[in-house]
């Protein structure tokens, strides 16, 4: 069972490395969206520092949305997804492997880039640490939950917009606790509670999202 997981992980990572453009688009989108705010709002560091967590979180959310479209569409188009359904392994396991690979190439770079962008917006060292941790917990949730939406909209026309409408509302709790954690830590309340909730959401998503995604794929492939 773990071999199947490793196989699909290796396959998707190899494919991603050979098509770096998809990875870089997401990352540059993230960087550009965050960089637009100082230009629009003005270089007042206090204002920027205040809005920084929200801005970075929303940008991360939109960037991971953007990447979601590539999650299953390639496999859907070339028939590999059909073959994956016939692999004698639980589909949810294969889905988990695909989502994990997807997070490693689209979510993890965002997490690594966030401290740099945080510095640009004047966040303090403490706030940066919290931001990094919340993104580390939050971006996998976005990949996992987004996968359900991506699977449901497979092969539909205008799926990009539909995907956003389906998935963005589900990201709200992650956004609230993620951005909230940074603010709470800045105001001296401590980010512990927010972190625990984010962790709980992640555990729930790991348990149920692959299973729901597998069911959604089966429906889309009929």
């Amino acid at each position, binding site marked *: 069972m773990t071999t199947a997981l490793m196989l699909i992980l290796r396959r998707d990572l190899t494919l991603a490395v050979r098509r770096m453009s998809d990875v870089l688009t997401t990352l540059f989108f993230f960087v550009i969206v965050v960089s637009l705010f100082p230009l629009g709002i003005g270089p007042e560091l206090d204002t920027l520092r205040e809005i920084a967590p929200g801005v970075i979180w929303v940008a991360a959310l939109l960037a991971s949305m953007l990447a979601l479209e590539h999650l299953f569409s390639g496999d859907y*188009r070339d*028939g*590999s997804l*059909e073959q994956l359904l*016939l692999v004698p*392994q639980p589909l949810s396991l294969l889905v988990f492997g695909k989502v994990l690979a997807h997070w490693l190439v689209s979510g993890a770079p965002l997490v690594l880039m966030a401290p740099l962008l945080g510095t640009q917006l004047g966040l303090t060292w403490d706030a940066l640490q919290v931001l990094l941790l919340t993104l580390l917990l939050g971006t996998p949730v976005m990949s996992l939950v987004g996968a359900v939406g991506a699977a449901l909209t497979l092969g539909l026309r205008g799926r990009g917009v539909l995907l956003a409408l389906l998935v963005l509302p589900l990201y709200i709790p992650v956004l609230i606790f993620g951005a909230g954690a940074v603010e709470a830590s800045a105001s001296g309340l401590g980010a512990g509670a927010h972190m625990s909730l984010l962790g709980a959401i992640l555990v729930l998503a790991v348990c149920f999202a692959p299973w729901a995604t597998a069911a959604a794929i089966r429906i889309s492939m009929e």
Partner: protein
Amino acid sequence: MLKAGGLAVWRGDRCLFSDLDVALAGGEMLYVSGHNGSGKTTLLRLLCGLILPEQGSITWSGVNIRALGDDYHRELFYFGHSSAIKEGLSGLENLRMAAALAGEPVTEQQAIEALDRMGLEGYEDLPAKVLSQGQKRRVALARLLLTGTRLWILDEPFTALDIVAIEHLRDTLHAHLAAQGLVVLTTHQRVDFEPARVRQLDLGHGSGTGL
């Protein structure tokens, strides 16, 4: 071995076929013919368990394929409409990955030999995106030489192949039938097989006339 009774499928309001029976024993081939849109691919995907029939049931060795689940998939090789070749991987990587995922890992040597026998000598390490349509299909069909599955369900396997490759594929299918394997096949080409082994199923215009 493979039995289906009373199959019916609707696409929207249109009935593709109804009350369709299929029975196939070891060493036999089912040759599904019919016009475009008569439901050939749908029937094949039905037999794979990718679609649920609206009516009827499909059994393998007497057990419903839904109940068998992965055990059925271990007996099955499906070659679909699109060849499931990843353009970013080389032919060799594609073949080995597909085999490993299906739970039948092959060594690099075995994979290269299979590709060579499909006439892809020298193309093993090229990324699949530079291969022609026919070459991609050959990579996918090379799995036939390596798989130990009993039931082969092949959707238009002869399309985009040249004469030599068609001949070769025909021999492979013959060998499989001789080893008591089962083949379900659609094709628009005329391919000669021993009549005793072949069962015909004509879906006609898709009006629902069966065997």
